[in-house]
């Protein structure tokens, strides 16, 4: 009995760590959705760009992880602004499904450009090996704990920015009603670009953290994007605390499902949760009811 409980606890812990990895791109995804009004699946390509930008600095120039994470953020963020200007802005006024499909095209373009440049082989960051931390019968990966801490700090900073600053109010106002925000004197185009920078930047930074924990290849984001989408839907599209909560729910559900399901099927849990939430609670756990 104790063994089973330990196994469940370890799986739940692994789930929290998986959720921590998902939380940052999910925050980016949900922020982009709130302001731009469509699910931007290009986060997967931007995540991969961040991971590769970080990998180059780390393995070719010896930069440590703490310096590489902001660089991954900036590289993906700058690319995010470029795709916003080149792809999203010309499609202004198009239906959200059109924009969502365009974002899939952007993701494919970026991922294939990376394949062209770097090939499909797995690559690892050059980081000192760290032992797992053991408390009782439970093991924690130090890299995953670091990722969880970064995700929590990012969430708190973004939450504070959005809640307590003039810029944050302008972002939330634009998310609520862009034409009303423009009438109030807010430069909504600049706000959308800033959000593209931050949202895609978060995906890029999480690409670095993911790469530091496992290994990277051009499809690193593609494999994660369903779970990221599921986390945002479960938490409530547009809600930042919701994205973190959704990421934890998806992470724990995926890991705990391996008790009864072969682990190959654990990504189906994300699909199942999307289906359940869209059917029974479309606004997710913390999403706001829209007028």
């Amino acid at each position: 009995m104790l063994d089973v409980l330990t196994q469940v606890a370890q799986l739940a812990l692994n789930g929290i760590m998986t959720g921590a990895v998902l939380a940052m791109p999910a925050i980016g995804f949900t922020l982009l959705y709130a302001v731009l009004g469509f699910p931007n699946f290009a986060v997967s390509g931007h995540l991969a760009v961040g991971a590769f930008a970080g990998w180059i600095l780390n393995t070719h120039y010896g930069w440590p992880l703490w310096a590489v994470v902001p660089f991954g953020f900036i590289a993906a963020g700058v690319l995010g602004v470029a795709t916003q200007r080149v792809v999203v802005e010309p499609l202004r006024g198009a239906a959200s499904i059109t924009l969502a499909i365009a974002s899939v095209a952007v993701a494919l373009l970026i991922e294939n450009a990376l394949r062209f440049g770097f090939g499909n082989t797995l690559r690892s960051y050059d980081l000192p090996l760290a032992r797992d931390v053991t408390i009782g019968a439970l093991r924690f990966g130090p890299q995953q704990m670091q990722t969880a801490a970064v995700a929590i700090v990012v969430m708190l900073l973004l939450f504070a920015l959005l809640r307590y600053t003039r810029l944050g109010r302008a972002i939330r106002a634009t998310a609520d009603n862009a034409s009303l925000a423009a009438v109030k004197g807010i430069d909504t185009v600049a706000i959308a670009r800033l959000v593209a920078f931050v949202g895609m930047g978060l995906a890029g930074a999480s690409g670095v953290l993911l790469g530091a924990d496992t290994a990277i290849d051009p499809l690193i984001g593609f494999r994660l994007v369903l779970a990221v989408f599921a986390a945002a839907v479960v938490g409530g599209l547009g809600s930042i605390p919701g994205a973190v909560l959704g990421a934890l729910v998806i992470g724990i559900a995926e890991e705990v499902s391996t008790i009864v399901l072969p682990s190959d099927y654990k990504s189906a849990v994300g699909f199942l949760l999307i289906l359940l939430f869209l059917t029974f609670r479309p606004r997710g756990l913390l999403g706001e009811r829209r007028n």
Partner: protein
Amino acid sequence: MEVRDVVAGYGASDEILKGVSLAVGERELVCIIGPNGAGKSTLLKVVAGLLRPRRGTVAFAGNVLTGAPPRQIARAGVAYVAQEQNVFPSLTVRENLLVGSYLHPASAEQRCRSMMERFPVLRERKDRAARTLSGGQRQTLAVAAALMAEPRMLVLDEPSAGLSPKVTEELFATLAGIRAQGVSILMVEQNALAALAVADRAYIFVLGRNEREGAAAAIAADPEIRRVFLGG
């Protein structure tokens, strides 16, 4: 504010305004009345910069603003209040007021306090999300948020829509007070008799063209206009 020969519509072949003109002087309250489809709200969208006219000019305080983005029009001192969706539902009442003063951040907090003194109904609900307000409270918030921008001119689309007669009366009294403080007002209003009672001048639009214009009192007293446009 001077609007001259404006032609505008939403689709490529759609022409709602077929060449309308109007003028609003300083400290003047002007209302536009007319049947549905006359293009009243469309004209206000052109004035606010939300719809680019195909022809004609919009000028304010000597500056030509035709086709300028809403942000530039707001900077020029024009505050627009739409008929619906005129507050940010997920922002609190206080946040809505602060966003109203986005172009004047230095004085925003102080103006927010004085606005809440002026409209106690907003002070009592300052930390509540705007989506929880009643129709009248929401309309009051929309007007107050527009005033936060310290506008020289207020442009209002059907401010009394959905409001009870008592709240409408209070709203029009508030508008008269705002005008008395030096703010020009251009207003489209379905409640034509009540609007004419507070307005200085009025325009009647029919099918995207100017039909009549004149002093509000004269328009309200004209038996022909009363019969055709004011329901007797």
